[in-house]
């Protein structure tokens, strides 16, 4: 049974993540799993620079390190459990279906990839707990998660309001076409009015792609508004969102190769860091 998985880490965004996950769970009638990953701290707990080794140094060192890790991890484990309990209460109050909790050791990304087959939709905050609650920064994990995970991802911002409509940034690219198939069949989005928006691309070919996308969505009972904007992609989309009071942005993610993305920066990255509303990223 695939489920909605929400990443809880106790950062300022965890509340919004709970709300968003509960909303998705309720709409898709899918069970919700709250996930807390205990990441290994890379900085050793203690060190001495005495630089000598003697009788039984290795055995003692192992015991000593194990003991320090034990203390540190016990606290982290309990803290995580409390976070999950709070998240459970909050998401149940929000109306989530069948909430379960899970704690895992390891790196978040690896944990998610291992459990990928069970994920129907991943809900994650824009920044994790290692960031100060600044706007316009993207969490240390999010980038990798978006790139590596082949599942839809709902990125929650500081707070979450159940969206009354959603907008799709469509550019006719292959990623956008593939994403179209995904949200046209989405049980989370079904029934919400859709704004299909394209910025730039004033040529015939793109016009046609936009039209066919709109008719595909209409055939799936979406109420579609098509809009064509001009100017800078980010600001045009942002203005449109404010103007129509849209609560959710849907887009295909990371069409470029890693190398190109590293140097050029991608729309997706920029959208994630600048957006005021939650984003649903599809691959």
């Amino acid at each position, binding site marked *: 049974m695939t489920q909605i998985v929400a990443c809880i880490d106790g950062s300022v965004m965890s509340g919004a993540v709970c709300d968003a996950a509960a909303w998705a769970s309720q709409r898709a009638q899918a069970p919700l799993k709250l996930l807390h990953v205990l990441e*290994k701290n*890379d*900085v*050793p707990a*203690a*060190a*001495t*620079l*005495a*630089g*000598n*080794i*003697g*009788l*039984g*140094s*290795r*055995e003692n*060192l*192992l015991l000593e*390190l*194990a003991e320090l*890790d034990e203390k540190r991890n016990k606290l982290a484990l309990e803290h995580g459990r409390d976070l999950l309990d709070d998240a459970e209460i909050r998401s149940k109050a929000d109306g989530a279906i069948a909430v379960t909790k899970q704690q895992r050791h390891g790196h978040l*990304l690896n944990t998610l990839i291992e459990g990928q087959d069970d994920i129907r939709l991943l809900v994650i905050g824009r920044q994790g707990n290692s960031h100060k609650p600044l706007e316009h920064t993207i969490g240390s994990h999010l980038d*990798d998660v978006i790139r590596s995970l082949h599942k839809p991802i709902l990125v929650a911002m500081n707070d979450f309001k159940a969206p009354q409509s959603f907008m799709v940034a469509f550019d006719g690219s292959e990623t956008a076409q593939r994403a179209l198939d995904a949200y046209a069949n989405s049980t989370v989005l079904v029934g919400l009015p859709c704004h299909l928006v394209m910025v730039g691309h004033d040529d015939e070919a793109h016009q046609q792609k936009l039209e066919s996308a709109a008719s595909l969505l209409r055939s799936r009972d979406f109420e579609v508004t098509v809009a064509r904007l001009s100017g800078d992609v980010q600001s045009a989309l942002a203005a449109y969102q404010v103007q129509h009071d849209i609560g959710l942005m849907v887009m295909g993610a990371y069409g470029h190769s*890693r190398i190109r993305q*590293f140097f050029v920066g991608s729309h997706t990255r920029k959208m994630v860091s600048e957006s005021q509303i939650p984003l649903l990223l599809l691959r």
Partner: protein
Amino acid sequence: MLNSIKRDWLANIRGDLLAGTVVALALIPEAIAFSIIAGVDPKVGLYASFCIAVIISFVGGRPGMISAATGAMSLLMVTLVKDHGLEYLLAASLLTGVIQILAGYLKLGDLMRFVSRSVVTGFVNALAILIFMAQLPELTDVTWHVYAMTAGGLAIIYLFPYVPKIGSWLPSPLVCILAITAIAIIWGIDVRTVADMGELPDTLPIFLWPDVPLTLETLWIILPYSVALAAVGLLESMMTATIVDELTDTESDKNRECKGQGVANIGSSLLGGMAGCAMIGQSIINVKSGGRGRLSTFMAGFLLLIMVVFLDDWIGQIPMAALVAVMIMVSIGTFSWESFRNLKQHPLSTNIVMISTVVVVVATHNLALGVLVGVLLASLFFANKIGRFMVVKQEQVNADERVYRVVGQVFFASSDAFAKSFDFREVVTRVTIDLTHAHFWDITSVSALDKVVIKFRREGADVELIGLNEASATIVDRFGVHDKPEEVEKLLAGH
């Protein structure tokens, strides 16, 4: 990938830089000492330690592990250097690297699972003994000054850390070297110093192709050495990686480490250094000092070269006694003292494996041979144990019929006992051998069964076999049940 680079290099910058510094200080005496064991100038070992540590920090599979010139490798080079000279050693180191890269691509790192715990313990203890024994030439036929200095050095190493405050941030091996050198200079004591042992580096290493004739003859000279060096280098590296894995509670990529060791050795040989491998003692010091990432290994190699090149006049004045003291510390720290305590609790077979490994290594000075003997012994003991897991039960159905039920593992070690479990003297007309709960693991067991059947026939009995096909399903080399729990259960439960 970027993320893993960040994690391996930048997650623990302060700890890695400090630990790398501590390790670099301890690497200098080791590199000099191991060059002397191999019979080459100290600069060969120092260049090697620099190259290996720096290269492995990029290409190795175990962040935080220290690799450099090592005693285990030096001991294998002695005769090559004596008979053919340094250039052949460099060529052999190059070939060692090539072999190790091949081993990495063939995934030989996975073979480490056949090396049991007691063999690892034996290896570590043997290594400690070899490092200690290698110091003995410095301690024979010398004046009492040398003994006093060595003892004083050891006292500083082990007592200085108890000095409040500075004891915990000033590496005591460094204090030992500084103090002993100062004493020797101030009182003008005439003892052997590092400068007496050969040339020290005064420049950065330069690229050098080993000056040997590229003939088949050269290959035959260096090949046996290279194979032994590659084997020992990989063994010590894999074991050290396991130890670091355990200490830091993280995982390493063993096959990447094999390839990395190869690349590092090739790099070292082309810059005038000898072959090396991972170092157990130094890696423990690194972890203890808070080193976890690749930066610590890089720092150790880099700083070593800087110090050696710019301080070569001073390093030349270090008395050998100070180095001996540091090396004795490394030897003591490498030795697994736990294994002494465990001798009483562990079964005899385990102890025999461990001690045989040590004895063979100390006798041959070749760690690979010791491991080979240890692994063979451990396998034999294991086969013997599993061979006892076989029983043949007899049942009399009626006066004329006898049923034998075979339960357990039948293979080369138990097939004799299997054949002897049947009573051929008994006069019956029908014999049934029920193999439903047996497993035949090899051809030896099948031929033993054939013999039993023929023997019964000769005595005039009809023989019926039950469940032979299922029992012999385990003979084929690949009966992949690892990933299918239900298959394993079926096998173990009978068919």
